[in-house]
């Protein structure tokens, strides 16, 4: 049987892609962020995932605002990045797992999550940067992916409660998948940041700490706020925590926190990285 092994949450600030391209990992500005990936590399080397389920938000590469799905699941055997218009290098393509994608889609719709299904899907920096950070200098990615895009851009956004329930339904799908893969879950984005308006530069370390402290033992605590309240607490783009909440739901009931890193600032963002290992339920 396949096994959910846990996974990774991390910020996806585009500037990180620029820093990787310039090899700025040891630069004093960047080092405190990149240092958070030592424990990630150790955990991945030990955990040896075959597949990654990735919850992220698209920034105007695959989706435009004229047709904006709340939840969209990729169902392709290959996913490519492309020019996003802001000068980032184009990231390596990803192998998909269409059969697993369809199994997840079937399960989600059965559970009344009426998702959008994408047989072609460009994936942007929000998906690619966590992989660049996790497997630096890899010639090709060692895992296949299933991308799940959550609308964190055009309100109304799904609630934290709904995102956690979506993640849990994905977890049920993974638990019933008859393959023998080791499956990791990735949530990207956050933590607190706001790019636009007169509150640009907003950071909320207290709310970020609440999220990081609660996510492992009590993810339901994050569902007491509406998406609009999260915008107020975490900033307009800090609402990307929705991806982390969904990813946490997919990791299973009990997880152990393996590592945590939090650093202000990367660009305009409170950058954070966490690894959780899913606790095995005794048979």
């Amino acid at each position, binding site marked *: 049987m396949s096994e959910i092994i846990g996974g990774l949450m991390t910020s996806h600030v585009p*500037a990180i892609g620029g820093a990787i391209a310039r090899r700025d990992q040891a630069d004093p500005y960047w080092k405190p962020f990149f240092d958070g990936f030592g424990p990630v590399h150790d955990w991945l080397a030990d955990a040896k995932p075959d597949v990654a389920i990735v919850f992220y938000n698209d920034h*105007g590469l695959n989706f435009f*605002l004229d047709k904006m799905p709340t939840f969209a699941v990729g169902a392709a055997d290959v996913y490519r990045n492309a020019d996003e218009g*802001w000068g980032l290098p184009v990231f390596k393509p990803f192998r998909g797992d269409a059969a697993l994608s369809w199994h997840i889609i079937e399960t989600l719709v059965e559970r009344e999550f009426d998702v959008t299904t994408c047989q072609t899907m460009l994936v942007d920096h929000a998906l690619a940067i966590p992989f660049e950070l996790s497997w630096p200098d890899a010639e090709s990615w060692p895992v296949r992916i299933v991308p799940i895009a959550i609308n964190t851009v055009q*309100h109304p956004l799904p609630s934290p409660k709904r995102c956690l329930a979506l993640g849990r339904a994905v977890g049920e799908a993974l638990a019933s998948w008859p393959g023998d893969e080791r499956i990791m879950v990735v949530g990207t984005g956050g933590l607190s940041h706001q790019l636009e*308006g*007169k509150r640009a530069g*907003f*950071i909320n370390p207290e709310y970020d700490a609440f999220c990081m402290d609660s996510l492992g033992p009590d993810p339901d605590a994050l569902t007491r706020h509406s998406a609009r309240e999260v915008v107020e607490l975490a900033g307009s783009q800090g609402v990307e925590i929705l991806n982390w909440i969904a990813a946490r739901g997919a990791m299973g009931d009990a997880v152990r926190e393996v590592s945590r890193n939090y650093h202000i600032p990367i660009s305009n963002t409170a950058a954070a990285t966490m690894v959780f290992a899913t606790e095995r339920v005794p048979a």
Partner: protein
Amino acid sequence: MPTQPDPLDTPIFGGDLAQRGLALNAMCFSFNDAGNRAAFLADEEGYCARYRLTPAQRNAVADRDILAMLAAGGNIYYLAKLAGIFGLNVQDVGAMQTGVSVAEFRQMMLDGGRRAA
């Protein structure tokens, strides 16, 4: 939730702004293509006309006025693609919106960012 005295403090990009901003955001979406970025730089007036920007949007773009673009329905992820054409990143954009120099904005972030009032 605290009341917001100024909608440009933290704009909520919902139906109203999304509808108002569709033309501007569609133009910015086109900047994913390098050829389109070059076409904009070669003939900004003609390019904006092709996307049927509203007068408020056209003026905001001409003035490089980010707050006015937001008020005209621009979404920041899309405006960032326009800013990129001018070689501006989100820290430049942060400074432009808050009336400080880029050095001051960067320093504010290094000092821990803008905190709740």
